[in-house]
């Protein structure tokens, strides 16, 4: 592994400097979120206000980024989250990660705050902080065009905030290609707080692998590999939205703000319907053969320029809100992409507000006259704009996210929130996938569906990769039904969390790479490291890298004041869910607490404080953190 090249940008003083991180240290924190956490723990006080100049905003890629193979073009943003108050990160795909690396950098670290709007333009060694006053207030698509004009250059890849980031909406995203988002954790608000509108790179060619012939053993048969994997075939056909079909049919699609899993008209919002009725094309990320990104057209509501809705968006603006109008979902998706909002938190926060309205907790006066009933997808347009612009009234209330907004309304409203550490839940029901109950509550930045593998892998036949691959990480017991939450699931949650954490470090797409259903598995990743960059590694070392990142985040959170008491589930997690043909799935508080005890023990964390013990820190080489 080579040294990492890190560009520091002090926005207050408008200065830049280049530093290198030696290869030996980089191997312990090899990119993405692990590198971001290493830099934050080294240089930043975890108690800072997330929206103050003292917060750091770190864009990073990884040693493997840009080497032509499916699922390697991802970029991570790491910062202290204004939504959760914890360490936070978010990943994006597309083309900017590969171009970032091709420009010769591993990370760009922003500190301080500019006294007027700026954007950073990088063309290899030429780095310019440029005036962004002329595009402040613009939606993402317009800002892209403005920069092309300003730079007199069209060969650009950019990460941009919309008005929501400028207005410090707590779940503002950073947008790339108008349709790819660093969505979660409010990273766009941190960017806005720094008066930073965009990070822009000049396009460059790809990165050459160390061993071209070796790489061909992984890439040469990609078509056959895809055809042999039913889940990947479905992903290529319907994108992530295909999961609406499966969860909807099974009765595990969170509906009416998580009141139930049955959503009768789910087919109207399903991936197969999108493919059949409104899909224009499937787009991709650099060098990815899967091409899962849906581009849709709904005249008057959604333009192909802004992509199309993912599974989570179909659910949050669909079933969560009791809405079956696909056009309204696509319009909401487009507005979130224009204004720079996370579609999960935005849709979930609106669903929570609908629940409050239905229960009489929010009056029509408080919603600015909007009839905020379940099913009213026609309200999305006005609401999203109000949120993004933080208009006084319902806009500025919802701009805080559901958990913070509920605190201003009282206990009844808080009981309706479905979030962990303030992060609204993605659309995977813990009654069906109980290891996510552990993950949603214990994950350092709250609920995340992409931080551990999902439970059904433990039901797969013994000769199926869904069973074989997780068992390369550790050995698990077989499971024969939904709704099981026990020590086996705690082990599954932790071991696959390490793997996903490592993927967020090496910046890999979790549809292309993973420990169960994906295109490439753990052993292929070891081979990719060898052929790609000449790194002789092992599954054990990769697992430890992931574990180190999780522990750095836990230590950061401990210093920011978080304890086990924050690793909680919302009330709605314990609602029994009727699914299939008369079956019921549920988890109990007792099972949850027992599984959490097992999880802390396995992780080497103190069961009372939830913080990594001294032994765990020493084992992972983290005792340098004071």
């Amino acid at each position, binding site marked *: 592994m080579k040294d990492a090249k890190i560009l520091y940008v002090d926005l207050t003083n408008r200065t830049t400097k280049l530093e290198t991180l030696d290869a030996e240290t980089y191997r312990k924190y090899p990119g993405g979120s692990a590198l971001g956490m290493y830099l934050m723990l080294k240089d930043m006080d975890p108690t800072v206000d997330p929206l103050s100049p003292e917060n750091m905003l770190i864009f990073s890629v990884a040693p493997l980024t840009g080497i032509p193979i499916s699922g390697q073009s991802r970029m991570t943003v790491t910062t202290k989250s204004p939504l959760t108050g914890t360490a936070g990160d978010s990943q994006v795909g597309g083309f900017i990660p590969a171009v970032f690396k091709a420009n010769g950098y591993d990370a760009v670290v922003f500190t301080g705050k500019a006294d007027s709007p700026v954007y950073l333009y990088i063309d290899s060694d030429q780095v310019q902080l440029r005036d962004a006053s002329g595009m402040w207030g613009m939606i993402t698509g317009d800002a892209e065009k403005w920069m092309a004009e300003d730079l007199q250059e069209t060969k650009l890849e950019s990460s941009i905030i919309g008005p929501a980031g400028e207005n410090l909406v707590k779940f503002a995203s950073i947008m790339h290609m108008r349709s790819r988002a660093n969505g979660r954790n409010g990273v766009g608000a941190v960017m806005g707080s720094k008066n930073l509108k965009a990070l822009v790179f000049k396009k460059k060619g790809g990165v050459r692998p160390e061993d071209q012939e070796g790489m061909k053993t992984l890439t040469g048969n990609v078509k056959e590999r895809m055809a042999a994997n*039913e*889940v990947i*075939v*479905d*992903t290529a056909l319907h994108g*992530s939205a*295909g*999961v609406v079909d*499966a*969860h909807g*049919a*099974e009765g*595990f699609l969170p509906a009416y703000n998580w009141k139930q899993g049955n959503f009768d008209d789910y087919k109207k919002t399903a991936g197969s319907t999108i493919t059949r009725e409104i899909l224009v094309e499937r787009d991709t990320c650099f060098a990815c053969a899967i091409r899962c990104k849906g581009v849709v057209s709904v005249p008057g509501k959604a333009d192909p320029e802004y992509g199309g809705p993912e*599974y989570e968006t179909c659910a949050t603006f669909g079933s969560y809100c009791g809405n079956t109008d696909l056009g309204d979902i696509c319009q909401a998706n487009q507005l979130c992409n224009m204004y720079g909002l996370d579609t999960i938190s935005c849709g979930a926060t609106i669903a929570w507000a609908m629940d409050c309205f239905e229960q009489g907790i929010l009056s029509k006066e408080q919603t600015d006259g909007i009839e905020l009933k379940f099913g009213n997808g026609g309200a999305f347009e006005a609401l999203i704009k109000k949120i993004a612009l933080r208009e006084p009234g319902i806009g500025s209330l919802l701009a805080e996210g559901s958990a913070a907004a509920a605190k201003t309304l009282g206990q009844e409203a808080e009981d309706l929130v479905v979030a962990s550490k303030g992060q609204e839940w993605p659309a*995977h029901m813990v009654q*069906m996938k109980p290891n996510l109950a552990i993950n949603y509550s214990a994950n350092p930045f709250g609920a995340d*569906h*992409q931080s551990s*593998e*999902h439970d*059904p*892998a433990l*039901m*797969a*036949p*013994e*000769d*199926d990769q*869904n069973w074989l691959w997780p068992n390369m990480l550790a050995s698990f017991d*077989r499971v*024969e*039904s*939904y709704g099981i939450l026990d020590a086996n699931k705690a082990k599954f949650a932790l071991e696959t969390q390490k793997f996903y954490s490592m993927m967020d470090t090496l910046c890999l797409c*979790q*549809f292309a790479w993973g420990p*169960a*259903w994906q295109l490439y598995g753990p052993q292929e990743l070891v081979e990719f490291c060898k052929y790609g960059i000449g790194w002789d590694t092992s599954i054990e070392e990769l697992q430890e890298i992931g574990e180190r990142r999780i522990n750095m985040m836990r230590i950061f959170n401990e210093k920011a004041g978080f304890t086990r008491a924050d690793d909680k589930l919302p009330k709605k997690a314990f609602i029994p869910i009727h699914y*299939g*043909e008369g*079956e019921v799935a549920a988890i109990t508080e007792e099972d949850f607490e027992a599984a959490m005890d097992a999880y802390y023990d396995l992780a080497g964390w103190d069961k009372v404080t939830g913080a990594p013990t001294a032994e765990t820190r020493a084992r992972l080489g983290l005792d340098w953190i004071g």
Partner: protein
Amino acid sequence: MKVWLNKKEVELPAEMTVADLIKEKQFKKAAVWINGKQLLSAEYESHGFQEGDQVKILRVVAGG
């Protein structure tokens, strides 16, 4: 032929295989138990059903 499918009595064609059943249910991936024993996926194409079989079939839904 009558079998018990996820605790409900149903009629299946005599020549139906496990793979046919999975296809009919439109599952991308499934776990199947017959009389309490889980099948390997390699058995799906050839394995049929017997009168009175207790069949359990669950959809293996991936993340995403």
